[in-house]
Each structure stands twice: as C-alpha cells, then as structure tokens.
C-alpha cells in the first residue's frame, strides 16, 4: 500500500457461467496473489477485464498463463501495457482476447488477430 492507493484493485461479477474479473493498477509479484485468489474464489469460465491495468510484467503474465491452464479464460479489452508485454514475450497468440461487453466477451472478432 502507498499514498496512491492499493497497487491492484480487483472486483468480480458473475454473469451466467462466466465470472468477469475487473482489475486495475499494477500486476506484479506483489499483487498476482490478489488476482489468483479472485479466480480461485470464482466458478465457471473466467473473463478478465484488463482495460485499466496500468502495468504488468512477467509475474502477471505467468499468472495469466497459470489461470489459462486451469480455466477457460478470455482477456477482455487489454490495455496497451498488456498488449506490449504479450508482444515482447512473443505470446500474442497465447490467449483468447475479446472486446465484448458481455458473455462470451469476444465481440465481433477476437482482438488476437490484430495484435
């Protein structure tokens, strides 16, 4: 914690078989556990809204890969920080990425085709 507030804020909402987890802030070694706990406390398929994720590094990326290995996962409206990291890690095709506002969150086309 610091004067600027929590480094990562996480909220969850159930929508049918989907859980939409919205994160904002910084996802790093000190905060991945918060996201992981939110996923572990959810049921069904997981959509993570990453529009307001200001920062993410390899710790966050590993956690997203871990989640993907256990659950159906869609990354929704990833921020520039997320898109850049996926490119740097050469993992742009590793995730299903969507722009939709509701289940199944894909929008008209998967964003991964444009990464």
């Amino acid at each position, binding site marked *: 914690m610091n004067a600027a507030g929590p*480094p990562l804020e996480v909220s969850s909402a159930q929508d049918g078989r989907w859980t939409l987890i919205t994160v904002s802030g*910084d996802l790093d070694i*000190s905060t*991945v*556990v918060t996201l992981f706990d939110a996923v572990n406390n959810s049921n069904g398929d997981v959509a993570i809204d990453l529009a307001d994720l200001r*920062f993410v*590094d390899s710790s966050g990326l590993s956690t997203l890969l871990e989640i993907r290995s256990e659950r159906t996962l869609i990354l929704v409206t990833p921020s520039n920080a997320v898109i850049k990291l996926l490119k740097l890690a050469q993992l742009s095709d590793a995730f299903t990425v969507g722009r939709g506002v509701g289940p199944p969150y894909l929008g008209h086309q998967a964003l991964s085709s444009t990464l």
Partner: protein
Amino acid sequence: MNAAQNFVEQTYQLSNRAPGAARRFVRSVFAQRAERGAAELAVSELITNVIHHATSTPRVTVRVSQAPVIRLEVVQHPSETPHPATPAPGTSRSWPQRTELTGRGLGIVDAISQDWGYERRGNDLVAWCEIPAT
C-alpha cells in the same frame, strides 16, 4: 561503463514490494520521456529476478542514468553471512511457482534492451540493461 554516465539511485530492502517501489522511482526519473514504460518494465523484471534467485541479498540498489544512454542497474548487495532468500510479504501458497517465469522475465529484458548483462563490482553483482532512445 562510460564514466560520463550520471546516475541517480535508490536502495530497497529486497521484498515483493521492491519492484513496485523501484517502478515509482523510475517513473519519476523518466516522467517526461517516452521510454518510461520500457524502463519501468525492465527494472521490475530485473528485481523480480533477484527475488527469485538471490540467496543472500537483503538489499538492492537501483541506479538510473538517462545520458548518454539510458542505463538501468540493479545492484545486489550480498549479506556477509549468506542466508536463504527472504520470503516476500504477501506471498501465499497460491502463488504459482513456475520455473520458466524467470527465463521469461529476462527474455522480456532482452526484448526491451539494446544490450544487457551482469557484472561483478567488488562484492556486488550488477544486473544492467540499456534501453534504446525512441
């Protein structure tokens, strides 16, 4: 290393909070520069790598220089008596231990940097990278 490099630096206790603290420092140094995001990511990866691998490093110093090249250094200060890596506060059992995590972190450093590496400086081990100006 070029002697003309002018560094600013901050020292941190090695914990899971060190990467975030170092990013704030780098963000302030690079406030007006386009390379800020890359510098933040690089320092975060370098310190996280120390957290995963160092066995006797209670403190790290982050050194940043903007000219003539953008250079980041993470200096590992060894303790006099080696001790196990400090378990980071906030770490829980659900933290996914992935052996490939570290390699991915340095791969990201490699992708960001025009050059990077390690060097000995007295008793210290220095991880450094240089980021191309945009």
